[in-house]
């Protein structure tokens, strides 16, 4: 009984990054789709993206290896490829955020609200 609990726990710990990433992905996904507030949507989007980055980085992680910086003393490096990908991903995420925030400001100027439901209602009234 106790042993199985230990097993489960150690399995959880050894996969903790993956699990957290998945959990965060779901939270972000949920925030993005269900919240009607546009800024909340954007934050959700960021959470979702960082969770994927976390996932990717934890894949690249090699136990007991060091960062991919050339050093004579180090035997193993973690995989540098995901880093390059994620670096781009972060930048892209920031630019997406900036762009969508600019749009939020524009929408607020026009509709006076940042709630997508209300915007939809106002738009229908306009038409």
């Amino acid at each position, binding site marked *: 009984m106790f042993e199985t609990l230990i097993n489960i726990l150690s399995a959880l710990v050894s996969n903790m990054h993956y699990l957290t990433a998945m959990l965060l992905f779901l939270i972000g996904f*949920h925030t993005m789709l269900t919240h009607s507030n546009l*800024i909340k949507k954007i934050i*959700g989007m960021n959470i979702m993206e960082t969770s994927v980055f976390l996932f990717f*980085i934890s894949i690249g992680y090699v136990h007991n290896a060091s960062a991919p910086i050339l050093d004579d003393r180090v035997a193993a490096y973690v995989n540098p490829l995901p*880093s390059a990908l994620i*670096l781009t991903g972060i930048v892209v995420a*920031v630019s997406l955020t900036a762009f969508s*925030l600019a749009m939020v400001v524009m929408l607020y100027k026009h509709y006076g*609200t940042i709630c997508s439901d209300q915007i939809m209602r106002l738009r229908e009234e306009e038409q």
Partner: protein
Amino acid sequence: MLTALNVMMLVFLVVCAVVVARSNDLLSAVIMFAAYSLVMAIVWQQLEAPDLALTEAAMGAGVTTILLLVVISKTRRTEE
């Protein structure tokens, strides 16, 4: 020891994310998001990705937060 730290940080991340999703005050959501990004940067540092940690700290915690704050100051603070 380090594992415990990692676990704590990951739990913190999840809690942060949940708080961000639940809070009605956008400003506090943004602040929590900044904390989330910063902890995320530390986690990445723990995963031997210092490049990314650095970038995330600057970009995610810095730039994104500032942008969000500016936008909130221009629009409204609470979720209706």
